[in-house]
């Protein structure tokens, strides 16, 4: 199908880092089943670095590919760097997404932030709330700007 780029199809067919981290240091879940997509991100943190990242996704091909790509982009990176991951960067790394699928990349960005936020909260690490504006909002919000 030429609906998606080869990159999207590759990440969809062979998703990287799919699964669960049983003793995760942070877990983030965004989206909802009613809208047809949920992403769950598990992170393992060591010395401020994302030592391991895993995801589970209920959703369309681009949602699965976006989560897979996002985990690849942040794995092994410092938390501060992972927090700068944008949906645009995810979409670009996938060689683009159809306009009406851009919200899938937004979900990936949110899932990463939600997992890191969970880690900060569990460990009572102070954080800048401004950086997590997106982590707690539902993707039903208008993400027209990103799109």
């Amino acid at each position, binding site marked *: 199908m030429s609906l998606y780029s080869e990159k999207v199809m590759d990440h969809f067919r062979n998703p990287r880092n799919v699964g669960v981290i049983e003793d995760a240091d942070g877990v983030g879940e965004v989206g909802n089943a*009613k*809208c*047809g997509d*949920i992403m769950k991100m598990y992170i393992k943190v060591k010395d401020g670095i994302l030592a391991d990242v895993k995801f589970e*996704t209920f959703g369309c*091909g681009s949602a699965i590919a976006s989560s897979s790509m996002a985990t690849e982009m942040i794995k092994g990176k410092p938390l501060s760097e992972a927090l700068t991951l944008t949906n645009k960067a995810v979409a670009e790394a996938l060689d683009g997404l159809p306009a009406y699928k851009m919200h899938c990349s937004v979900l990936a960005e949110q899932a990463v932030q939600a997992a890191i936020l969970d880690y900060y909260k569990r460990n009572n690490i102070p954080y800048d709330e401004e950086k997590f504006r997106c982590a707690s909002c539902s993707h039903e919000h208008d993400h027209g700007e990103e799109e």
Partner: protein
Amino acid sequence: MKVYADNAATTRLRPEALRAYTETATEFFGNPSSLHSEGQRAKEVLEDCRARMAKALGALPREIVFTSGGSEADNQAILSAARAGAQKGKTRIVSTAIEHHAVLHALNRLKREGFTIDLLPVGTDGIVRAADAEKALGEDVCLCSVMLANNEIGTVQPVKEIAALCRARKIPFHTDAVQAVGHLNVDVNELGADYLALSAHKFGGPRGVGALYARTGAPLSPLVEGGAQERGKRAGTENLPAIAAMTVALEAALATRPETEAYVSALRDRLIDGLSRIPHCALNGDRTRRLAGNVSFCFEGIEGESLLLLLDDKGVSASSGSACTSGSLDPSHVLLAIGRVHDVAHGSLRLTLNEENTKEEVDYLLTVVPEVVETLRNMSPVWRDLTEGKRKFIL
């Protein structure tokens, strides 16, 4: 293995239809409106096709208008009856919640123009109740439109009963028979329809051609203004090769219809029985009152688009009522109408078979669909929550 299981979307062109197409395009290239003999030869073919299409439907030749397809035929029937009704002060239209968008969107247009639209509900079996129609058919109703068979879940509607109720009340009755013609026994007089829409590519004819049956005396106004083709009801030079191919395709489909129905419904039942063994799934629509080739399921914990993509990788062409396949946020209105909640409706799969499919193909589907469902469930956080008891199973 390649399995084309999307025959409700479109079918492969029948070889005899292709032959009729090329022969008509090359041998009868004249314009049927032209006075010269080339034109008149083409006109003869056109009228021959009209007579044969009429015969196939139990209609009179002058009651057949050739169109660009089912959507145009639906639109023309609905808008014609509505405009005529409005002139008599009747502005209510009764239809159903599971109609094709060609009907629903035409009704939406009329709603914006001031008509009142009553959409009858369906049961969880995907079938509208004649008793509900009876209650809705008041004196102010100018049209009742009920599809003969549903395109997503294949359920066959009690059109004959509802048409009889309309006839007794002198209310024009339209049926969208796009999925039914060539597959079910369709006779306009047995059904009691005043209008009937059909599309050629659902029974092995070409795309871009269809027909509208409009009973003698039923109001009919053109959607396209122009020349006097189709007795002034549809302007534009007739697509004669496509019309000839459609006629041949319908005759071919009807010549073997009972055998085809028995063969295809046996494949369907084998597929339904096999897929039913997948845990936490459900068949959409009534088990028996459905088209011979229609199989529609919802699988809990997964999403339909990813299901289609993985099946495509396995060589299987299928379809889904998932929101993600249409670019909208809401899943299919048909699945919602039969009571599927959003979470479950997103995980739908439609496989539609015809006489070209084989038992081997069905067995292949029975191997790959459960595999793909399992693959997706294994990466679904929803499925994990369901199996760990954090979320309640619906199916």
